[in-house]
């Protein structure tokens, strides 16, 4: 199963088409096996949870059960939550996270590249950035809410600071890792400073930046939800907070599932964009997953 490239054990006289067909069949089988086990594990875990809850091995009051979570999601979707329509609440959280994500990553990229290209500025500011970076971001939530109120602004601000430092650090590092010969080559070919930044430094920092964008969308969601915990009128975090207040375990899990699905979808979209932008990169010779 491990060795896909070696076409060992064919009888002499086997044609190339036959070997290729066999290899393709094996790759297909491997993919199917992986998918089978992925689904099997999910079913097994959910089944165990359901069973344990039904048999009272674990207390269904605290741990709920998959069927209760699905029922709650269905109820929310059809009849709305105590705080109004589920979609409105989801929309509020997404809006906060997206605005924070976009502004945070744009700012992170710009500042990261700016400081990465300027030794003097980075020497001066590095100590401040380290200091601010050492603050756990969630402790800022109460301050932002105090200053900006219960609405959109405080959550966006929290999502922004969650995203900014991750993207900034990666953009900065990406700029520093840009190949010196490549930069020298561009300069000798006639590039100005700005042309070097645009055509060499930014593209080569791009894979670093994208790596950080993958995690930082999750961070933006964390920022929005933690902000809602601390104080909000709407949003998924607020739903979780209310569910906690009423000892509604199914409600909490339902909200978690929603956030998970949304984040996975965002991650998928981001991978699509990245693959389009990075078509110059060498492909793995064999797709093993």
């Amino acid at each position, binding site marked *: 199963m491990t060795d896909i490239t070696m076409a060992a054990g064919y009888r002499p006289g086997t044609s190339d088409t036959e070997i290729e067909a066999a290899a393709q069949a094996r790759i297909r089988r491997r993919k199917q096996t992986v998918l089978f086990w992925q689904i099997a594990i999910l079913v097994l875990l959910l089944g165990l949870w359901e069973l344990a809850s039904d048999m009272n091995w674990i207390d269904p009051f605290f741990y709920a059960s998959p069927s209760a979570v699905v029922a709650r999601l269905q109820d929310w979707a059809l009849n709305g939550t105590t705080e109004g329509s589920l979609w409105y609440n989801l929309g509020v959280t997404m809006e906060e996270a997206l605005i924070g994500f976009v502004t945070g990553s744009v700012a992170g990229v710009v500042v990261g590249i700016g400081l990465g290209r300027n030794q003097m500025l980075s020497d001066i500011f590095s100590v401040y950035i380290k200091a601010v970076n050492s603050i756990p971001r969630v402790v800022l939530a109460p301050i932002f809410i105090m200053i900006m109120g219960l609405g959109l602004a405080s959550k966006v601000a929290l999502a922004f600071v969650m995203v900014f430092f991750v993207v900034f650090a990666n953009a900065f590092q990406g700029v520093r890792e840009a190949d010196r010969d*490549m930069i020298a080559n561009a300069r000798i070919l006639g590039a100005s400073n700005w042309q070097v930044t645009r055509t060499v430094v930014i593209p080569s920092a791009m894979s670093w930046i994208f790596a950080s964008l993958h995690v930082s969308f999750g961070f933006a969601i964390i920022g929005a939800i933690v902000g809602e915990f601390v104080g909000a009128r709407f949003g998924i975090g607020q739903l979780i907070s209310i569910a906690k207040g009423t000892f509604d375990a199914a409600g909490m899990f339902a909200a978690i599932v929603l956030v998970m699905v949304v984040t996975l979808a965002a991650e998928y979209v981001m991978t699509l964009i990245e693959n389009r932008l990075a078509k*110059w990169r060498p492909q793995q010779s064999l797709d093993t997953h």
Partner: protein
Amino acid sequence: MAASQGREPAIELINVTRRFVSPTGKSLTALADFNMTVERGEFVAVVGPTGCGKSTTLNLVTGLARPSAGEVRLMGGPVNGIDPRVGFAFQKDALFPWKNVIDNVMAGPLFRGRSRSEAEKSAKDWLARVGLSKFLHHYPHQLSGGMRKRVALAQTFINEPEILLMDEPFSALDVQTRTVMHEELLKLWAERQASVVFVTHDLEEAVALADKVYVLTAGPATVESGYRIDLPRPRVVSEIRYEQAFIDYCKTIWEDLRQEVETSYRRASEAA
């Protein structure tokens, strides 16, 4: 060279010293009282033990680095920043991996403010000359090492440099590909007659290509000796190595070079 008489040499390094100072304040002298002249249209090879300051010499000519003392002159004038008449071929792959072949070659003219259509026309022309017309839209990672070097040559030559600096450009290639690239280079050079400084640690490569071979001393580098190579042109690199004159040149220069290599080796093992 008759053609160069009455004109300033292409490159002059006059009593050049280059010191590096590390962030902790320790100083290291890479070049000391270095003197070298390259006439216009001349192909000069520079050989020397590893780490003796060959690459430093080239950086001084490009204007990427400045001499700590002494003077570097190009075509009779001082070097102020990066000179547009200079082209550089790197040891490592310095192509832009996110640009395809033609965009890589077009980079130079576009940086210099020529129009896209003009740049594209001239890039196609240069890629045809290095035999890569069928690979315009390939990315560097899809090409072999030899093909990437040819793209790099086209990228350098498209700016029509009057001074061409080459820093062990073919050292990463296998022996057969390297010989092919030597012929390719001599062909391109014969058309353009640029002044070339070709840095290498391979003595046979130096003798096969150059009009003049300089041997550098173990660092800090100074010119130990210079040899004029009077082998007829056009040269066929794959065959020249079997000629008696070629072998004699190699033997003579190697006598010189060996001492420097031994000195450098002894110092390295003492330091270790």
